[in-house]
């Protein structure tokens, strides 16, 4: 059963855990992937102070129209190379990232994102580009699978 307002997401990478962890905490790396498709995250507008109480701030820029989405978070827990937890100040959302070494060269990243109501007010959510009932059956199937 899916929990209320929570998102679990995981991906396995062919890379050692230390490197994957470094990618998630080093702006030199983050700038290459932090923005989703069609969105960049400029290196010079990124702050990553990876220690408890440290700031994690980015600006995501939509390549199509130049629209900017600043994000601002504070790290709650940092345990290299296995755990990152931050809380986003702009949305109140809490994101927990676990790095699990499956083999020396294979790492699973498990994201556990906890919903808070303000999250819905984020620009991406308001854009409405995902508004469709068509996805609902797939969504339900996903919930059932995880039940």
């Amino acid at each position, binding site marked *: *059963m*899916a929990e*209320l*307002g929570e*998102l679990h*997401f995981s*991906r396995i*990478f*062919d*890379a*050692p855990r230390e*490197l*994957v962890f470094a*990618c998630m905490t080093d702006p030199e*790396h983050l700038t*290459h*992937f*932090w*923005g*989703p*498709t069609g969105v960049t995250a400029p290196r010079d507008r990124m702050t990553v102070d990876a220690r408890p109480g440290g700031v994690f701030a980015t600006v995501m820029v939509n390549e199509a129209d130049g629209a900017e989405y600043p994000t601002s978070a504070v790290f709650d827990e940092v345990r290299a190379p296995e755990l990152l937890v931050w809380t986003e100040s702009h949305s109140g959302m809490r994101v927990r990232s676990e790095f699990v070494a499956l*083999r*020396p*060269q294979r790492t699973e*990243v498990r*994201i556990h*994102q906890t*919903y808070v*109501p*303000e*999250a*819905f*007010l*984020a620009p*991406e*959510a308001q854009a*409405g580009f*995902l*508004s*469709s*009932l068509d*996805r*609902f*059956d797939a*969504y*339900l199937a996903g*919930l*059932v699978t995880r*039940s």
Partner: protein
Amino acid sequence: MKTATADTLDAAFAALADPTRRAIVSRLARGDATVTELAAPFAISLPAVSKHLKVLERSGLISRQRDAQFRPCHLEAAALDGALDWITTNRRLWNERFDKLDVLLADLQPTRKREEGTHG
């Protein structure tokens, strides 16, 4: 068009936490239906279904006509989209980020050899 607020989104998530209510919402996505029609696929009583419908109605996910004889239930797409958007938006965000991270990790390990561990 109704704008979803924090409260309505909370209520929507709570309403969707129940499998019977999710099934009811799924059925209504295909068109309006009466309580009797909605109860048909389930091995539960009409009053039980009515209870679920009240929860869904309070959450704003469905509405019921007050004056029609059989009071068909109607799915409020805007309220549902609010709940779905949060999940799908964030899932897509991580998916797209990790697609890029996968490419980056390949670039960072040009001599990557599969199955070769450095530790015992």
